[in-house]
């Protein structure tokens, strides 16, 4: 039997995770402010942002590192400053926690849960380090 990997799991569960996290974030004030500023609907913005995150997480778990999210975090800081976007580290961490809770809740293998927990901890640290206090 072929062993399921985090990559397989995220490929197979991408849409379900996206929809579930989008539902969790509905009505989020910061998301609403960013959507208004970007002149797009809140659901379109949530879909774009979550797609971006899920792609980054899957890329990292395929690589077995945090290389993608480390660079994405630097990009996010520059993008926020350049476009004067009203979100902060708390919002970024909250979004990552929502995605991570959703992923963790769907994992059936203890080995995959451990793998994801280790990754989650590293990315959490990246978020803390990336945002100037």
């Amino acid at each position: 039997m072929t062993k399921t990997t985090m990559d397989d799991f995220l490929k197979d569960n991408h849409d379900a995770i996206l929809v579930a996290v989008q539902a969790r974030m509905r009505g989020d004030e910061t998301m609403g402010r960013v959507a208004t500023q970007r002149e797009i609907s809140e659901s379109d913005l949530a879909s774009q942002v979550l797609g971006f995150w899920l792609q980054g997480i899957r890329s990292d778990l395929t690589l077995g590192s945090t290389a993608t999210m480390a660079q994405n975090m630097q990009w996010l800081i520059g993008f926020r400053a350049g476009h004067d976007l009203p979100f902060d580290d708390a919002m970024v961490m909250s979004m990552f926690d929502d995605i991570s809770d959703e992923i963790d809740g769907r994992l059936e293998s203890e080995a995959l849960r451990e793998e994801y927990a280790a990754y989650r901890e590293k990315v959490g640290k990246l978020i803390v380090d990336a945002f100037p206090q």
Partner: protein
Amino acid sequence: MKLEEYMDHLIAGEDEVCLTVGKERAGDLAGLHGLYVDVIQPSQYRVGELWESGKISVATEHLATATNSYVASNCYAPLARATTGGPKALIACTPEEMHELGPRMLADLLECDGWDVDFYGTSMPARELVGAIRERKPRFVGISAALVMHLGSVKRTITAIRGALGDDTPPIVVGGNAFRGDGELWKQVGADMYAADASAAVEMLRGFKE
């Protein structure tokens, strides 16, 4: 003309001015290398940075890319040569990657160097790439990724190629903006080689022609 001056024309959408600059620069093959590596590549990076920092719109970013593509294709055309019968090379963007100007420039310079290049453009599915390698039997495969979030896709593609072809897998070279931030990323995706620009890639790959 300095890069910043070229950038001004590029951002303004002055395609004919940009083409004139390109033609002045690319009078011969060495000039085409210089145009691609010293003008078009850095100007594309700069365009990306300007969009990220909110200084230009998405529309301007697209216009600038289209203009650079127009300049590249018009400057390459007079130097293009028949390459049928030359050593085969295969170049593609990784799945989901929609930025093709970089690998297109590599394909152009390889053709000028005598390679018979199959350029597959944007978002080449891994399974199709495996089929193309089996059928076309290239001396090497080039895979490009511009966005860092596509690094995982590059690794999955390379894994699929190696899994399907085993010892018959040709050398795999990777490149593109996604690899710029970390000089070791090409190893993480399982590639055999990395080149920072099209000109360096041509030089590096010359050893695979014989």
